[in-house]
């Protein structure tokens, strides 16, 4: 369903770093012959890949955990925001009421305030019914020439 939304938005290049909640989506990206799937070792490389792809006329998305969004703040600010390059980030929104590890909690606490401080649009998707918002977020990114971050709760990724 998420992959369908990405394809509908014209995205055929996905750079990912795994998260437990993202396993199924990443498996689908890897298996789909219409998607070029690039394996990352660090999330800010995904920002670079998506930005470079857009320069060349190809739409791409970064799939990662919200801690990866935090790690990629400098790349999002310095490349995507500063050069006005749109891209879509699909991130597992770890560390909220639906999570169950001490070490996840800081991510849920600080990710949204950091995105707000950066001036980057972001949306939280609570469940499967709201997944069509991914297409809306992609359109918002391209019209704004800015990265847009979609944060998905556990229920939206099951």
């Amino acid at each position, binding site marked *: 369903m998420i992959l369908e939304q990405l394809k509908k938005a014209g995205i055929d290049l996905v750079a990912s770093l795994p998260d437990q909640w993202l396993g199924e989506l990443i498996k689908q990206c890897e298996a789909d012959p219409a998607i070029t799937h690039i394996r990352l070792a660090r999330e800010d490389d995904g920002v670079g890949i998506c930005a470079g*792809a857009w320069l060349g006329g190809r739409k791409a998305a970064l799939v990662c955990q919200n801690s990866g969004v935090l790690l990629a703040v400098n790349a999002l600010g310095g490349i995507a925001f500063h050069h006005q390059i749109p891209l879509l980030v699909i991130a597992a929104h770890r560390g909220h009421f639906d999570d169950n590890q001490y070490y996840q909690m800081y991510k849920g606490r600080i990710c949204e305030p950091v995105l707000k401080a950066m001036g980057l649009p972001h949306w939280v998707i609570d469940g499967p019914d709201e997944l069509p918002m991914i297409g809306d977020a992609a359109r918002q990114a391209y019209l704004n020439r800015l990265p847009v971050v979609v944060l998905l709760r556990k229920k939206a990724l099951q």
Partner: protein
Amino acid sequence: MKRLALAKLVKQRLRKDDLVVCGLGATEAAFKEAAPANPTYYASDPMGIWASLALGLALARPKQRVTLLAGDGDLLMNLQVLATVATAPVPNYRIVVFHNGSYSSTGGQPLAGKLSFSGVAKSVGFEWAHEARGEDETAKRLDELYARPGPALLDVWLEDEPCPTAPPGPLSQVEVRTLFMRDIS
């Protein structure tokens, strides 16, 4: 060898429709002095992201060759990107490292480690990665680099020359980005 000599050797080997992504600071100064005719995307801060940006460009333009001119400090900052490049489907992607072992724009502070970029590239899965010193060897290795499919990396050792920071040009990154996209569209 001086960095301008390397920039000229690369320029001589570029085809008309090749695209270039060029690292900031000393690498940018050298390539601009060499006056390339090819569409070139010049890096800004942050360092460390340009190998992945060039990878994205190569994935978007599979029929064109993309060359990344990477400063050594820049590439070192996100060295793991070479692992991502190594397994990506980009026969059109090549990296030339401007390797002088120091941060030239900030006063020549030495880099951490004693790095062989070609050694790292090979160990993460590059089929072709070499280093070169001096103009003759570099010219020969550059010919090999462009004669075979990528991803491939040539690590070129250079003299350590100072490079004062250039003043800002007339165009912002957004304006330069727009012109680059128009040039290659």
